[in-house]
């Protein structure tokens, strides 16, 4: 380490950029993820639809997005799609969030599809045989069961998105990684800013892992609420 002669005060001097970077990273990730959940749920439901005109567009969308790099999607949206639609490029937030939502939705769609299909067929049949519509059966019977099984993969997807959000650096969105790049350029010191960026991502993913583990634990194994369990034990 002596060899590198690390000077950590560089980080302190540029702390404002890092604070902003963390904010931007979190904003992009959270917005992308929330949008990705809503759109992903719709695409996932579309992929279990028996109606071909619903199934195929959803399936093709998901396969296209999952089959191409997010970096390519980001550049198409930022440099081609938005300028073509609006006549000029939109800011990094619009392009960044749009890309993250559209990308995350495709991966979440697969999680929703697999989760829904993992629920035994008999559950849907029992619900339908009582007279529930497909939508009612989904809402009351299938999704509440499937969602529990989706918690771990949805958590993984959040962490993947948190890390992948660093790609927005290429459209000059001032996130954590972009801050490091600017600082490295300005100070001619690559080690400290990039190491610190890695450290910040690590803290964020570690925190997210802990929160996900907590949620997972709460909803794992048994459907019986703890309250009801206590009542039985007594």
């Amino acid at each position, binding site marked *: 380490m002596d060899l590198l002669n690390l000077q950590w005060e560089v980080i302190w001097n540029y702390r404002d950029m890092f604070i902003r970077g963390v904010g931007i990273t979190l904003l992009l990730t959270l917005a992308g993820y929330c949008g990705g959940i809503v759109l992903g749920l719709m695409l996932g439901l579309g992929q279990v639809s028996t109606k071909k005109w619903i199934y195929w567009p959803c399936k093709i969308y998901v396969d296209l997005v999952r089959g191409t790099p997010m970096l390519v999607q980001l550049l198409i949206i930022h440099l081609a799609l938005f300028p073509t639609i609006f006549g000029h490029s939109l800011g990094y937030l619009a392009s960044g969030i749009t890309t993250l939502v559209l990308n995350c939705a495709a991966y979440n769609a697969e999680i929703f599809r697999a989760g829904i299909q993992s629920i035994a067929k008999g559950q849907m049949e029992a619900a339908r045989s009582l007279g529930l519509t497909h939508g009612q059966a989904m809402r009351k019977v299938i999704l509440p069961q499937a969602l529990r099984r989706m918690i771990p993969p949805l958590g993984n997807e959040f962490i993947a998105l948190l890390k992948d959000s660093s790609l927005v650096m290429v459209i000059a969105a001032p996130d954590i990684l972009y801050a490091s790049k600017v600082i490295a350029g300005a100070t001619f010191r690559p080690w400290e800013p990039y190491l610190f960026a890695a450290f910040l991502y690590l803290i964020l993913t570690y925190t997210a892992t802990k929160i996900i583990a907590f949620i997972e634990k709460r909803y794992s194994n048994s459907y019986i609420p703890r309250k*009801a369990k206590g009542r039985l034990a007594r």
Partner: protein
Amino acid sequence: MIKIENLHKSFGELEVLKGIDYEIHEKQVVCVIGPSGSGKSTFLRCINLLEDITDGAIYIEKVKVNDPKTNINEIRAEVGMVFQQFNLFPHMNIIENVIMAPMQIRKMSRANAEALAHELLKKVGLDSKAYNYPEQLSGGQQQRVAIARALAMKPKAILFDEPTSALDPEMVKEVLEVMKNLALEGMTMIVVTHEMGFAREVGDRVVFMDGGYIVEEGTPDELFGNPRNDRTKAFLGKVL
């Protein structure tokens, strides 16, 4: 009350039902017997359109079930179904299992639905388990809840698909007992079963299916006492 005309059902190339004509009258208990793979479940599932019908027609109280204009959800609400694997909803406690459909579909208030549920759970002997979860119940208890759940929609008929086949022997009786009481109260029932004792005692008619056809049909005495068809004789020879 339920009229089946020339019912055909194929899964791809495989024709499973090859032209079934049958009529079930109100308050009748019809037991369907036959070897495994003969199309008994498919027959039952066609009646409430869990399978779509390849050809033919089914009428429930003069309403053509497989008519595009018929609201299939309304039909299903009138015809209960009890499955071999119970299919209770594991994320709901017992009373929620029973009240969910009446509240969703009949727009019953929670208070009314719960009162009804307690009454039905008493009837199947499980009111004390109202706030337990399915996984805390034995198979026989779960199946009795499934019957209560079907009854909560006040159906005009109930279809049973081998309701005791997944049960340990000591639990078969408690479920058959509940079904027998339903029959005595005048519920219209179609029961696919391997319980020949039940078919003989409770059934008004017994239907023998084989190879996608109804081979023979009659009162329990006729069918068990004096089967005419050779295939019926062979089947009964094996199971009795």
